[in-house]
């Protein structure tokens, strides 16, 4: 299927916008999880406690890649959440697409240009935080389960 057909002036060899650079980086904490954020828009840097760099044993690490999508119109729609296995996927229409990979500790999101700072901070950041906490917990549980199973195999 010609994904390139949907390009509309964008790099025809990158029809999915995979290679939008996200040069802005900082670190935050979400609960006990250390989160490294990278984005292409200052307004997508979450207002969360900054990470002090003090790493306590057992702190989970997560990476957020938040891409401001200048070609995705519209406001947030009702959330569709797909769960099961190592991925959680959320769609709020073209204005917000999120994928959380529990095993890799990654939250990858596209956020449309009409989602303003207030909506981002008040609606999306708490939502992304909850997804991150749940994924970190699930990863911790999976790791414990794997350790337990390998102990049983011995």
């Amino acid at each position, binding site marked *: *299927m*010609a*994904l*390139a*057909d*949907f390009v509309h002036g964008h*790099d025809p*060899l*990158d*029809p*999915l*916008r*995979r*290679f939008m650079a996200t040069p802005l980086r900082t670190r935050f904490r979400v609960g006990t999880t250390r989160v490294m954020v990278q984005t292409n828009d200052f307004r997508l840097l979450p207002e969360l406690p900054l990470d002090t760099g003090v790493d306590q044993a057992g702190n989970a690490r997560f990476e957020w*890649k938040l*891409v401001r*999508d200048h070609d*995705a119109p519209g406001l947030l729609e*009702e*959330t*569709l*959440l*797909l*769960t*099961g*296995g*190592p*991925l959680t*996927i959320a*769609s709020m*229409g*073209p204005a917000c*697409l999120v*994928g959380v*990979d529990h095993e890799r500790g*990654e939250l*990858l999101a*596209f956020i449309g240009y009409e989602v303003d700072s207030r909506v981002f901070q008040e609606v999306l950041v708490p939502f992304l935080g909850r997804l991150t906490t749940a994924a970190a917990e699930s990863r911790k549980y999976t790791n414990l389960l794997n350790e337990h199973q390998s102990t049983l195999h011995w």
Partner: protein
Amino acid sequence: MVNLSFDRANLVFRTEFSLGGVRCRLSTNSYKVLQHSIPWQGGSPNPEAKTFEMDILEDASMGSPTESRTHFRGVRHLVFAMLEPRSFVSYDLLRKQVRGVVSPDAASDHTFWKTQLLPITVGILGTTLGVAPLHCACLTRNGDGLLLAGLSGAGKSTLTAALARRRFAVVSDDWTYISRNRGTLVADGLSAPIKLLPDTVRFFPELHKFAPHKTMNGEMAYEIEPEKFHPVAEFTSCSPKWIFFLERTSVPGCRFVPCTSTYTRHFFKSNAERLPEELPAAQETRSEIIDRLSEYPSWIVRSGDDPHKTAEAIEQFLPEATLGPR
């Protein structure tokens, strides 16, 4: 919030089928969805074909379309697709897993499965499954495959329709999926229709019987099944033997210029979608397939003629092409 769990216990209908050089293990909660696999059942599957998992939920919460929209995004190993009628699909390229929610309309729409969801899925996942999706048409006659490539606007689809009229079977119009099978290359198509712009009606008066409609990328076009040009014009697989690169010129006539393997390799590699660094094996596989394909005899077809005359010239050239470039 609509929260849908892809618990295996909910996906009670299961089947496996081959398409586009890959194998799909489909699990769904919908019998209607299961039925869309029927055209792909049977045949002789490629024993080297790799498998992906496709979990599909039919859910009434997807509702009816409010506005038409098709939207794709990808980041690292994840791809998101919003399709009409009201469907949302996610692709995990590392785990080779597809998860989608479709509306009742989409669940029962065979055209949606045949022309959108399945071709898009193979297009997105193909490189991770040992298949190189290449932007070219593929036709076959007597088991010999002819790949027809060219830049956008060169007239590949129009020429494909003209060749179909001359009893060439159409494997694919727009995208061809190349894979390896027992040491040789195989070209697969997904039975998608030939897309023709409204102005091609001047070459194919029979198009007056149909109406152009708005396609997924928003442009108006006819989408015509190959058998409309000839009753036996559809095929799903073949062994490629020749490659033709179509170039339009203002000079009347049709000339066949042999091209080097470097040209062929460069054409396909420079027109291939960029892949993320998370998928090094996919890049390598695609590169190997293109390298192999570039050794096949290939020509640039410089044509200033209409598509029917160009198709005739290709047909007359094939006996010479069988001897290879000279």
